[in-house]
Structure formats: structure tokens, C-alpha cells
């Protein structure tokens, strides 16, 4: 069994399925012994992080090259008749996101340490399976496999919101579920259509991403398929006006759920655009690209304004996510190398800073049982360390130079300007002002002011452990961003090169396999 062989060696398969394997002992665990389950989960996720870091370092150092290579696990045929196979591959685009995911997960456990009060066993299993889904979706190179992993994520997240959430958790969970499903079903259709068209053009079926890249479709068909994909991704991102599930989901989700949602799940949308949405459909009309850019801009400004007048801390951060991811989509669709690098970095940045903010909200909620601004204030006095982290993360999120958010925004907007979207850049930059507006309001309402409540304990050690690594990374990315950007650059360049080669190829009227040189290495 090839699969078992892969599982027992350091491979992408191991990274993806290690959490699932780790969920098996949990099935028979005594659910009353919550403490042991927590420790078990912490150890498992830390091991997962170390494993992925080890593997990534291994791959990075393998040939002594300067950039992160495209490395694939051996293919395992699955449904050979339809060219469906088990294909995992990692490259510079997915690498940071993989590391982000595995890095966030132990922190999620720490953040849930005392905020999740029931069913730890089920919670742990949900998180573990969710991790498998996320990692699999980031690594899948077969579109059917991608779709499967994509849907695998849905159920655990639904459970996390629906079981451990706040008062309106059922509403939020159902909204999340239906929204996502409404997006992913058109994507499934588009995927199947792509495979079918490939079989027409090449004579055999394939859902292999790299093979599909060699097929060119008529522009009209590309447009429809792009819409199918884009709908799924845009809902996940979320792009205005498909964002309304996000505030509800965030507000109702437990701390850990919010962190995962913001830090990782939303990135799947933008990742999907980078990996599939853009390169597969180069001949999508300019107007559609423009529309997405405009929607991103609307998202940036609109969400920032809406965030500004929120009464609930978590909702404010949720809307800020919409604004931040607007920057990412802006970067992706301005199609320059700089803006892509920036978008990729910004995905990580947003994961770190918004993740930290959600953790902090959770910590505040645990102490005061409220997230409403009206009932908070003056936290700097009883909780100076928490206040420090809150200010720090808010500043990172507001794009203060020297911290991570700034680098991403700078690269995205510079790229957008160079890409010729000058006015868009200016409007996007207004979003930077507004970011300061709402984040400072949040600080003013929570951290500053007179404190009148009872004595509260400042951060516990496990809370410090959760926040500290995030803060260090935020600072490091802000100070030496090139270290974090360089590994991905080659992959981004290649993807954009393939995109432009495909774009410059004459338009076709029926599916055609074009002689495109997708690097031998890449294959």
C-alpha cells in the first residue's frame, strides 16, 4: 500500500493525515478526563507543527536552492478511468499557508484551554479533522481531491460553531454552512466540466491541476467556469457583498473557532484564487477582473466603515477581516509579482494579527463575560499585559510600519499601482486610514479609560504562551520581511508566467491542449 508507505515517512501525506490518525486514540479516550485530552491535543498539534516545519526545512534545504521548490508526493491512482488520483504537492505559495495553519493550531488549543467548557473530546476530534481538511485543500493538486478536502472542512467547522458557540450559534452555523455550500456546489460543477472538457481535448480524463493548465478553453466557457470557482472562493474570502455570514459566524463561534476561521479558513478563498481562479482562466473578461477589484475596494472601505460603528468587539474584528482580505484580493487581481507576494504575505499577516485579536477578545470575554464596548473599558489598569498585546496586535492590524501588516499592505498597494490601477491604489490607501479609525476606537473603548470593575487576574501562563509567539512573528515579519517573502517568490513568478503565457496564447474556439512549457521540474 503506497498510502501507508507515505504515512510512515516524512511526506506531505503524513502532514495531512497525522491529525486524523491522532484523532483515533481520542475516540476511545475517557471524555471526563478533559485535562488529559487538552494536553494530548496540545502535544499532537505541536508535533504537527514541528513535523511540517521539519519537512519544509528539509525540502527547502534539499538542493541548496534559494527558493522553495515544487515538491509532490508520489501519485496514487484512485479512479483511473476518470483520471482522478491522490496528488499532493507543495510549492512556495502553499508553503507559508501550511506553516501558518500548523502554527496556529497549538495556539488555538491554548486559546480554548479554559474557554471551551464541554465536550472536549468532540472538540478535539473536530479540530483534528478540520486540520486535515485545511492542509489537504492547500496541498491538493487534483481538483477532485481539492474539492473533497474543501468539503471536509465544512462539517467540523459547522460543529465548532454550532456546539460551542454563543447564543445564536445555530443560526450562525447554518448560515455558514449554507453559504459555503452554495458556493462550493457550482465549483464542483465547474471542476467536473473542466475534467470533461479535458477528456474531449486530450482523449483521456484528468483532474490533474498541472495538466489542466495545459488546456485552453474558449473565453466564454472560461468565464462561466471562472464564475463557478470564483463564487466558492469569494464566499470563503469573503468578498463584498457575500460577506454577511462572516460577522455572524465570528461572533457566535468560540474563541478557537474564530481564530481558525480568521487565520486559516478565509485564506482558502484567496489561495483558491491564486492557485486555480487566476491561472486556469486567463481569458476572463477584463470587466470581470475589474468588478472583483472594485468589490475588493468596496469591501475595504465599506467593511472598515461598518467596523467603526460596531458595538461588539468581536464583530468589529470580523468586519476588519473583510477589509483586510479586500486588500488581498486587490493584490491578487492586480496581477503583478509584487502584489502577489504582498497578498500572500498579507494572508499570513492577517492570520497572525487577527488571530491574536480574536484570542484576546476570548480572554476578555472569559474575564468579563461580555464583548460589548459599553460594558468594557480601562482594561489597561487591571490587565496591563493583555492591554499590551491588544495594542500591539491592533497596531499590527492597522498596518503600522515595523510590524507585519504594513509590509503586506505596502507590497499590495505598490503592486497595484505598478499594475496600472492607480486610482484603486489611492482608494485602497484610504482603507489604511480607516483601519486606524476603527482599531483605535476599539482600543479607546476597551483598553483606555477608567476601570471600575473587580480585580481580575492578568494573563495566565498558557495565554501568554498563545500570544507570545504570535507577537514575535508579527514583529519579525515587520522587521525582516524579505526572509519570509523570498522563498515564495519563485513559485509566484512561475505561476504568473504560466498565466501570462496562457493569456497571450491566441483565443481558441474549442478545448485545446497547448504546448505550454510548465517546467519539467514543476511536473
Amino acid at each position, binding site marked *: 500500500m503506497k498510502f501507508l508507505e507515505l504515512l510512515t515517512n516524512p511526506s506531505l501525506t503524513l502532514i495531512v493525515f497525522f491529525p486524523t490518525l491522532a484523532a483515533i486514540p481520542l475516540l476511545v479516550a475517557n471524555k471526563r478526563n478533559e485535562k488529559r485530552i487538552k494536553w494530548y491535543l496540545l502535544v499532537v498539534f505541536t508535533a504537527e507543527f514541528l513535523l511540517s516545519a521539519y519537512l519544509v526545512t528539509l525540502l527547502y534545504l534539499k538542493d541548496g536552492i534559494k527558493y522553495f521548490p515544487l515538491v509532490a508526493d508520489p501519485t496514487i491512482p484512485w479512479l483511473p478511468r476518470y483520471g482522478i488520483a491522490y496528488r499532493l504537492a507543495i510549492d512556495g505559495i502553499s508553503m507559508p499557508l501550511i506553516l501558518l495553519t500548523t502554527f496556529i493550531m497549538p495556539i488555538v488549543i491554548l486559546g480554548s484551554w479554559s474557554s471551551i467548557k464541554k465536550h472536549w473530546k468532540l472538540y478535539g476530534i473536530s479540530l483534528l479533522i478540520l486540520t486535515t481538511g485545511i492542509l489537504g485543500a492547500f496541498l491538493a493538486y487534483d481538483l477532485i481531491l481539492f474539492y473533497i478536502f474543501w468539503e471536509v472542512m465544512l462539517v467540523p467547522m459547522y460543529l465548532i460553531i454550532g456546539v460551542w458557540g454563543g447564543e445564536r450559534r445555530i443560526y450562525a452555523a447554518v*448560515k455558514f454552512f*449554507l453559504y459555503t455550500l452554495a458556493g462550493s456546489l457550482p465549483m464542483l460543477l465547474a471542476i467536473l466540466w473542466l475534467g470533461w472538457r479535458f477528456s474531449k481535448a486530450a482523449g483521456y480524463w484528468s483532474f490533474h491541476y498541472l495538466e489542466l493548465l495545459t488546456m485552453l478553453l474558449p473565453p466564454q466557457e472560461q468565464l462561466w467556469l471562472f464564475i463557478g470557482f470564483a463564487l466558492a472562493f469569494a464566499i470563503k474570502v469573503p468578498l463584498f*457583498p457575500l460577506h*454577511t455570514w462572516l460577522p455572524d459566524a465570528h461572533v457566535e463561534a468560540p474563541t478557537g473557532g474564530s481564530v481558525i476561521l480568521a487565520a486559516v479558513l478565509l485564506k482558502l478563498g484567496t489561495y483558491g484564487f491564486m492557485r486555480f481562479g487566476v491561472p486556469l482562466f486567463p481569458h476572463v473578461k477584463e470587466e470581470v477582473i475589474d468588478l472583483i477589484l472594485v468589490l475588493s475596494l468596496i469591501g475595504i472601505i*465599506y467593511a472598515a*466603515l*461598518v467596523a*467603526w*460603528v*460596531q458595538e461588539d468587539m468581536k464583530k468589529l474584528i470580523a468586519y476588519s477581516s473583510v477589509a483586510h482580505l479586500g486588500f488581498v484580493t486587490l493584490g491578487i487581481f492586480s496581477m503583478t*509579482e*509584487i502584489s502577489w*507576494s504582498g497578498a500572500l504575505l498579507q494572508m499570513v499577516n492577517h492570520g497572525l494579527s487577527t488571530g491574536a485579536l480574536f484570542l484576546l477578545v476570548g480572554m476578555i470575554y472569559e474575564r468579563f463575560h461580555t464583548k460589548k464596548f459599553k460594558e468594557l473599558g*480601562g482594561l*489597561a*489598569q487591571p490587565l*496591563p*499585559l493583555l492591554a499590551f498585546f491588544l*495594542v500591539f496586535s491592533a*497596531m499590527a492590524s492597522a498596518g*503600522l*510600519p*515595523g510590524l507585519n501588516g*504594513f*509590509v503586506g499592505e*505596502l*507590497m499590495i*498597494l*505598490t*503592486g497595484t*499601482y*505598478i499594475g496600472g490601477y*492607480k486610482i484603486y*491604489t*489611492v482608494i485602497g*490607501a*484610504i482603507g*489604511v*486610514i480607516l483601519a*486606524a*479609525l476603527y482599531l*483605535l*476606537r476599539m*482600543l*479607546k473603548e476597551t*483598553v*483606555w*479609560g*477608567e*476601570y471600575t470593575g473587580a480585580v481580575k487576574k492578568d494573563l495566565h501562563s498558557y495565554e501568554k504562551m498563545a500570544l507570545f509567539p504570535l507577537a514575535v512573528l508579527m514583529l519579525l515579519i515587520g522587521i*525582516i*520581511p*524579505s526572509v519570509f*517573502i*523570498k522563498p515564495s517568490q519563485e513559485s509566484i513568478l512561475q505561476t504568473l508566467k504560466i498565466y501570462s503565457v496562457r493569456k497571450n496564447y491566441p483565443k481558441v474556439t474549442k478545448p485545446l491542449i497547448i504546448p505550454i512549457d510548465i517546467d519539467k521540474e514543476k511536473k
Partner: protein
Amino acid sequence: MTSLIAIVLLPFLGAVVNGILSFSNSKRAVTFTALATTGGSLVIALYTIWRYLTELSPQPIEYVLYKWLEKPLEIQISFLLDPLSAIMLFVVTFVGFFIHLYSTGYMSDDEGYGRYFAYLNLFMGMMLLLILGSNLLVTFIGWEGVGLCSYLLIGFYYKQDEPPRASMKAFVVNRIGDFAFLIAIFISFAHFATLEYREILNAIATNQQLQDTVYIFGLTLPALLALLLFIAATGKSAQLPLYVWLPDAMAGPTPVSALIHAATMVTAGVYLLTRTNLLFQLSPNILKLVTLISVATAFMAASIAIAQRDIKKVLAYSTVSQLGYMFLAAGVGAFVVSIFHLFTHAFFKALLFLGSGSVIHAMEGEQDIYKMGGLKQHLPHTYITFLIGTLAIAGFPPLAGFFSKDAILAYTYDHSKAIYFIGLITAGLTSFYMFRMFILTFHGEFRGTEEQRKHLHESPPSMTLPLWILAIGSAFVGFIGKIPFTHYDLFGKILSPVIVKLEEKAVHHDVLHEVLLITLSVVAALLGLVAAKVLYSQGPTGDERLKSIITAPLYTLLKGKYFVDELYTFVIVTPLRTTANILWRFVDQLIIDGTLHLAAGIVQLISALGSFTTTGNLRNYMLYFVIGIILLIAYTVG
């Protein structure tokens, strides 16, 4: 030039150490760290500057620390030492150190002692980054960094209502300026593929076509950059229309007002203009704009200052006004003079703020000059140094302010007579409001409470020493600038490599002219002094007489600060907030979510129609089942 690294990094180190120490309770360690790092920075800076300026012909020195980003967006963290940054370096480290020293006395009783010094050290580091950066990005990091520190320090007394609000206002208004800075960065990178000042300016200087072609909105590329950088400067340096944050910023501790909101940070805009003076010299329209805005700011702020009661507010408006002077100098093309005024202003304004801090310290937090008076006997050191500062800012020879202000007015005279006269009137107003404040504070009867009177005391030496040092500076630094009637101009000589002179301007007047101009400005200052003396020798009732002289509506207008804050609230903040609320309540919740709920409702309706079959009775379900089987059989069979 590794010493530059040490200069910048020492304060950062101090910030980190103090930040950690702030969680423990050891004031001695905090004091030591704060003074050692900034002192170390000062010593190294002085040595470096001395070595650098005593070279025969100092060439700009660049030091690349590391590459921040690599291709295709290549930006490096690098420092630049040239005469301009050397002068700024001196101002920042020198004033900075003494204000740190002063703060150890001023803040000694505060519970946030460690936190305060962490912020202040961080500020020093960021300010040094700002002035030493060799490219737009490093400057921008410092630029926003000092904004952050300003935010944190204004909101230092976070338990009160006002500071958090003021700090937020400061940050957001600054961000509006930073927005323009960011755009300038994008444009520079898009067109020059670099952010290094030297390379950008070279590229512009050598490309005639770039200077002549219209880029956008009728502006050439250099003009556009100049405009954007000027907008950025109006934010940071509190010029019209973005000056509103600075008066509110006085909610922070007084040494902070001295360091950040008088001597260093707010002058960053002037520094930026001078650093990129080529852009401005290439775009006369923008220079004209700078002139108009600066002179309006100077006049407006000065006029507001004459009706204020809060000692720090008066000083704040005075700062805005003086910054206006600096920009005025830049606007008329006299960048050297602009920096010179920055230099002298740093001394006397820091001195005045520290003096006011000493007063506030003695009065136990009282800031209203109506409730002061007669402090002369109780605070002798403060009194004398404050007097020196007041004379300096009013422009009495031979104190520092005289030299710089006179030079500005002289250049303005060449440029435009009308603007010169406004400047002159502003100078008179400056003298007036400063002496008004001075007299109300130090002369006359004591108007505070009995308890305050009992506690009146001169400040400790850690506070008076900086006062004296700055007073000496305020008295004498003027002589390094251009001395009237001579061609002796050390400052100009030092700075001349930095200033690009596109065309030689007639800067020398004949002696008669010079005498006339000096007389005029001295007379203006004297008039202000006399008017203040006459009106206010009987104490605060002078305000009533002032009111009767300049008519009540005008006085209300000045007292209400031209109601600019109210105007902004009415025109910008409220509509924006309303829009946001509409977007949230109406668009988000009603339209978008409503559409969804409508769709969901339709589905629910359909399902409700079908749900009558689910009776819960098992038998019914079996019946459906059997019927289903029968239909299936019927279909397959027949």
C-alpha cells in the same frame, strides 16, 4: 558608520528593557536604563557629528544595514548622514536627553514610570530612524513610529476621559497625512524603482522631460510628489487643515509636549520638505501653496493663542504658529532658514514647555493661567529661564528666536510684501500672547487655592538643570546662523550641500533695508510686549479689555478656536458616522441579509407545504413506503 546603528539602536534597547521593567516596580533601574541609553546615544551622536562636520568637505555617508525587501520591490534599511541629518541628529539627541533627564524628576511620582520611559525611549528610536533614514521607507517607518509613540504618550493618563480621545484624534489625523506619504512611496517606486532619496532626486534632476511633462491633474511628477509630501507634512507638523490634533495633544505629560509636540516630532514635516527640497524647487505652484498655507496657519494659530487660558494650549498654538513660520521659510525657498528656525525653536519651545511643566508641577496639576500669578518669587529658576524662552520666541535680539525669525521675515519680504506683513503681525501677536501668558503666570497676585500656595516649591535639580541648559541654548544658538549685517553664516554653510539651488536668488539686502526690516520686527515684538504689559498688569481682567478692543464676536471666535473642531465634526465626522451606520444597519443587515432571509423564507414556505405528510405516525410512513414500492414495481414492470 556603525556608530549610526548604535545611536538608533540604543533607544530601542532602552524601550525594550523599560517595557519589561515596567511590569516590575523598580524606578531606579528604569531611570538608569532611560538615561544610559539616551545619554549614550547623545554622546555617540555628538562625537559622530563632530567628526563628520569637521571634515574638510563632508560627503553624505550612507550605511546599509540590511535589505528589508528584495527584488522586485527592493528596499533596504539604510541610514544617511549628511549635514541636514547631522543637525537633526543633534537636536533630537540633545533635547531628547535633557527631556529624559527632566522627566525623571517630573514623572517621579507617577505609577506608570516604567511605561512612560519605555514609550519615550521608543520615541527617540523612531525619531532617529525618521531623520537618519536614507530612503522614504525608513523615514516612513520612523514617521509612523513617532506617531504611535505620540499616540501612546498623549494617552498616557488613560484613566481620564480626555487623553484617550485626544490620542486617537492625533493618530487618525496623522494617518490622513501618512496616507499621502504612502501614495508618494507608491509613485516613487513605480517610477524610479527605488525609494532612496539620492537616487530619486538624481533621477528627477537629470531628466528634463520628467520635469516638464504633466503627469496627472495638471501636475508634473515632481510637483505631485511634492504635493503629497507636503500633505504628509501638514499632518505631522500640524499645518492647516490638519493642525487640530496638536492642541489636543497637550493632554499628555508635559515633557512629552516639550519633546514630541514642540521640539522634534512636529518638525519632521519641515525636515521632510528640506530633505526633498529639489521637488519643491521644481514646482513653484506647490511652493506657493506651502507659503499660503503656512502663513495662514501661523497667523491663525497665533490669533487663537491670545484668547486661551490653558498654559499648555497657548504653547501648543504657539507651536503651530512657529511651525507655520518654518513652512513659510520653506515656501519662499529658504530651506536653510527653515531648518535654522527649527533648530532654535527646538531650544526655546522645549524650554518653555519644560518651564510650564515646572509651573504645573508646582501648582499640582493646575494648568489654567487665570488661577496662577505671582509665581516669580516661588520659582526663581523657572521664572528666569521662562523669561529667556519668552524673549527668545518673541524675537528680541540677541536671543535665538530673533535670528531665525528675522531671517524668515527677510526672505518673505523679498518674496511678497503682503505675506511679509502678515508674518510681521504674527510676530507681534506672538510677542503679545507670550507675554500675556508670562505676566499672568509669574506676575501679579497669586490666584490659586490656599493649599496650592502652601505647596509651591521650586522643582528638583533634575528638572531645573535641563531648564538652564536649554535657556543657555535659547540665548546663544542664534549666533551660529546668519548674523545680520555680516556674511557670516555658519548654519547656511553647513547646510548648503543639502539645498539644491536651481537659480541663485538675491538674498542680500543693502544695509538700509536690513536695518529697516530688523527695526520693524523688533518694534513688532516690543509692541506686543507693551500691549501685554498694559492690558494684563492687573491680571486676567485684561481679557475683558482685550475683548472690548477687538469686539466681542471676534473674541468669541478666537476663544472658540475659530470653531474648526466643531466644523470638522459637523462636516466630516458626523456624516461619516451616519454613513457607516446606514451601511451597517441598512445595507448589511437589511438589504444583503434581508435578501438571504427572503430566499430562506421562500424555501421554508415550500417545505412547510410538504411537511403535513410528516404526522409522526409510523403507519403513515409505512404506507408511503409501500405505495412507493408499488409505484416502482409498476414503473419497472409496465
